[in-house]
């Protein structure tokens, strides 16, 4: 089943056409990698899907309904969570507080509804549970995020999005700043998120990671989808050739 689909998206910035009629699709429980050279319109595409920019024209369909995101909050409410490259975490705050940032639980009764007091215990318990399910090992849920390694931080960010996403998790270069071992940890985590039935959109420059994780690859070039391929039906060198424009390709092979 198609969870998120975009048709003929156009986005212009002055004289620059970032998206020139781009199509996109991702199915439930699928990892869709998005690759493309710098300036191919990758980030504009992702911004349109996550509500960070409003396309000039084109349609976005989520779960069978046409949607119009006016901002990232709209997309989030619709069940699309995005993990940004620069890690949207507050370093001095605890893991639990970061997981529930902007979505704090209130206490039961008047203490919550009238005094608007937050329910720290339930948030800590749920955050702990969530991290355990995803196999992220940390010492304590109350430790500050700044005391964690880069991989652990990425893990917290991914876990947060997985906890709240109903449909899609968008990951922007999740392994770019990590070493080999930490990358491996995050790759495993992404697979577990997919195994929960969520769709994952993975933007990455790292071809080995893309080929290890993705079910299909969306190759973006010159503001359009140059190709949509199944990962097991294409060689890494061919994907790079399409991406750089050395080879022309069609999208017929992998759709349907």
């Amino acid at each position: 089943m198609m969870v998120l689909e975009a048709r003929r998206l156009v986005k212009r910035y002055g004289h620059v056409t970032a998206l020139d009629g781009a199509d996109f699709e991702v199915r439930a429980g699928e990892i869709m990698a998005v690759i493309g050279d710098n300036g191919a319109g990758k980030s504009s595409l992702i911004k349109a899907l996550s509500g960070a920019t409003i396309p000039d024209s084109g349609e976005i369909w989520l779960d069978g309904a046409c949607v119009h995101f006016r901002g990232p909050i709209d997309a989030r409410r619709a069940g699309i969570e995005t993990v940004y490259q620069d890690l949207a975490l507050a370093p001095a705050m605890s893991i639990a507080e970061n997981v529930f940032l902007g979505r704090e639980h209130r206490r039961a009764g008047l203490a919550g509804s009238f005094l608007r007091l937050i329910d720290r215990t339930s948030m800590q318990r749920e955050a702990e549970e969530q991290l355990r399910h995803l196999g992220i090992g940390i010492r304590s849920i109350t430790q500050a995020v700044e005391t964690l390694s880069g991989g652990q931080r990425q893990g917290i960010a991914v876990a947060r999005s997985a906890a709240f996403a109903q449909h899609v998790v968008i990951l922007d270069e999740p392994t770019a700043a990590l070493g080999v071992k930490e990358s491996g940890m995050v790759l495993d985590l992404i697979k577990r998120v997919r195994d929960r039935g969520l769709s994952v959109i993975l933007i990455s420059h790292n071809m080995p990671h893309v080929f290890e994780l993705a079910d299909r690859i969306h190759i973006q070039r010159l503001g359009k989808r140059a190709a949509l391929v199944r990962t097991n039906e294409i060689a890494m060198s061919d994907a790079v050739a399409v991406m750089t424009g050395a080879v022309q390709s069609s999208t017929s092979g992998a759709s349907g």
Partner: protein
Amino acid sequence: MNVRRLAFAGPLVALLLACTFFALQSPRFLTGANLSLVLSQVMVVGVLAIGQTLVILTGGIDLACGMIMALGSISMSMLAVKHGWHPAMAIAGGMSVTTLAGMLNGLLVTRIKLPPFIVTLGTMNIAFAATQLVSRAQTVTDLPPLLTWLGNSVRVGNTPIAYGALAMLALYALVFVLLRETAAGRHVYAVGNNSEAARLAGINTNRLLLSVYMLSGLFAGIAALLSIARTGVGDPQSGQTENLDTVTAVVLGGTSLFGGRGLIVGSLVGALIVGVFRNGLTLMGVSSVYQILVTGVLVILAVATDQWSRKA
């Protein structure tokens, strides 16, 4: 959690050391009457420092709070004395003036995107000039009793404690709970930590910042009332030392000038450290110039400790 507790332990130890030192230097220091005096001397800076803490936690600074307080105290006293307003209305009027001044700061920071340092440097001068113009640089006297009511005191044993000092402690307790136990309070930290992350998490950062600057204005209004209660007059020259003493108190209390880290109770301890040094040095007969010198050294030490602990 442990790190936070440690950050708070430092200022508290410094306060206790200072108290021990002055207790050894002067037998009058540890008397109930003197400690109550310290509390009364600290209450104006203490209340201003609450607003300052909120602003600094978001990564900003309010250089105008003392001058806004002076504008508030002149507004209150003149509305009551020169314009014949009911004292309660005059107090409400003065607090509206300071809250609006805070709102101006907040709007300039959030809408025009100017740095808080520059905005409040500007409004500091504007508030000072407005205070002088409105009052014609004259002290307002013959105030109705309601305006100085907070200067009355309640006896605890043999020690009189000013209502104003109790009000300050109550405000600290209130803001402590707000910052710790409400979502809005946690968002103050989040904005100071990583304002982009806070925005992406769905927090309306502009509205939060505006509220924080308005609260700083409101606390300046409450401080204005305390200042009137303490001196018995509406003084256009008030607020000038308090203005930067708030920053000193906040920084001595362990709150980071970079935002996002700190405890409200720390600022109370910081204000008390300044108050204890002033009081203790006075008891020892040290001239006030040296007291200012000591305050300056303390601030630099506190900021250096903050920088150093962040690098470690």
